[in-house]
């Protein structure tokens, strides 16, 4: 890989009381790359995402975005330096319209727009992620997948350097899943840098250039997607779990 490193995670550890949810994890994400963060339930994937996005401070270790160390910064500063995320359980802003939900991502973050420019930008993004709904309607009128799309549009709205997707494809039916995979593939072809947590094997195979595998908080494998998925340790970690 000769592409420059965008996100660099170094010896990241996070404890909750006695529980070590993330244990000394290190990995890199290069520019224009889609990296999968996978592992059985409770292995610390969401916690890793929370540490990168600043929802939680790490117990030790460092996270670098380009040449700034972001591991001690508050979430808002991390967002401004170019990390955007979606949440494992969709988080809409219920009293805001669909359009405003998208705008929320583009006013205070990595990219800061206002006025008619913001309006155009948000409408374009809604179209981009495939929400055909009336943009001024409340979010409660959206289907589940459309809510996920709006959340994705909000994350994209800041034009982030790294996009963190936490099980963005979970809970979709087979048709929606196909559409979802295509959408993320589009983003990859557009040159986005993405770190995604996923359980759906089809999605991992078709989207991820590389994978990092976690189990009980530790990294047990890393490498090209096919290699990693046939790795004995990885198969063992997944066996006994009924995820797949």
């Amino acid at each position, binding site marked *: 890989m000769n592409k420059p490193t965008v996100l660099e995670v170094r010896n990241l550890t996070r404890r909750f009381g006695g529980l070590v949810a993330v244990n000394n994890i290190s990995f890199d994400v290069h520019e224009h790359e889609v990296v999968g963060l996978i592992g059985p339930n409770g292995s610390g994937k969401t916690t890793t995402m929370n540490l990168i*996005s600043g929802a939680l401070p790490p117990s030790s270790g460092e996270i670098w975005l380009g040449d700034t160390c972001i591991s001690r910064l*508050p*979430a*808002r500063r991390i967002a401004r330096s170019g990390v955007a995320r979606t949440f494992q359980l969709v988080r809409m802003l219920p*009293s805001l319209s669909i359009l405003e939900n998208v*705008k929320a991502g583009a*006013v*205070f973050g990595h990219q800061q727009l206002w006025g008619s420019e913001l309006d155009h930008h948000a409408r374009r993004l809604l179209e981009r992620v495939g929400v055909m709904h009336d943009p001024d309607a409340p979010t409660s009128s959206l289907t589940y997948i459309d809510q996920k799309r709006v959340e994705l549009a909000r994350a994209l709205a800041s034009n982030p350097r790294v996009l963190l997707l936490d099980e963005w494809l979970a809970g979709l039916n087979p048709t929606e899943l196909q559409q979802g995979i295509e959408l993320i593939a589009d983003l990859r072809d557009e040159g986005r840098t993405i770190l995604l947590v996923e359980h759906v094997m089809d999605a991992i195979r078709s989207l991820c250039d590389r994978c990092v595998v976690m189990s009980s908080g530790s990294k047990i494998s890393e490498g090209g997607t096919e290699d990693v998925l046939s790795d004995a340790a990885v198969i063992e970690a997944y066996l006994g779990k009924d995820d797949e």
Partner: protein
Amino acid sequence: MKQQELIRLVLVALVFGLLALLPLIPANDRLMALAVPIAMYAVLATSWSLFSGPTHYISLATAAFYGVGAYTLANGLEVFSYPLLLLMAALLGGGLAALVGMTTLRLSGVYFVIFTLGLAELIRQLVTWYQNNFTGSRGSYVFTDITEAQIYWQLLGLLALVFLLGWLINRSRLGFAIRIIGNDELVARHSGINTARTKVLLFILSGAFAAVVGAVMAPRFVYVEPSMAFSPQLSFMVVVMALLGGVHRLWGPLLGVVPFAIVWELIAANFPGQTVLFMGLAFLVVVYFIPQGVAGVLEQQLHKIRQRRGG
């Protein structure tokens, strides 16, 4: 769109103009005795909603700011000019709000309520103690030649200012930020919003307004003493009026202030012991029957009528 806004602006200006003529009605003592408190609560409830409406933080600190303002005027009257005192009241009220906000707004809502509930009481006890031990008097006289009508006009001016500011904020990034925070603080942080600063800023604004109102009202007391200036009842009145009217619209609190203040005066005049009961019932009505306030009910009805016409 632009034209509609212009029409609205002219209408609002017209209403304010008409209201300003009120004191010119002859033999208006009883009318003014009602109009001044209504104008006062209108300013307090509307500025309270600027912060508490979008964030859902129930602030009971109004009495604290109000009292600080009243005391600023009462104690400074011999030294400073009146307009300067109003400015000082705004600065002191805003400063107090900044302190309170910075210590409590990063914590959860319950802490904030409890903290603000006790704040006025804390200041009242401190002021009383100070006066008893160091000045030897229980309060201070406020002698000015400010008339009831002038107080009313000042309050009306403040109300116009609150509306103007509220309108500007609603169209600004600050207003957008506070709405996002009120919806989901975590999303707000991850969108790059400085949540603490945004909340404190709006809280300062509402604190400053309450303090100025206290200063404007002080001449009406003639004698300013702690139990009056820092009365916790004032805070509760503001909360219940604002919620009754509806805090999701700038004009919502007004719809609560006017009827509540009138009924309150009626009850206070006829059954002076029952005002507390009335306040309690009003709280329960808000929670159980009209959580969106009168404004919410009105909007719903309007929506229904429009739908019927459309379909």
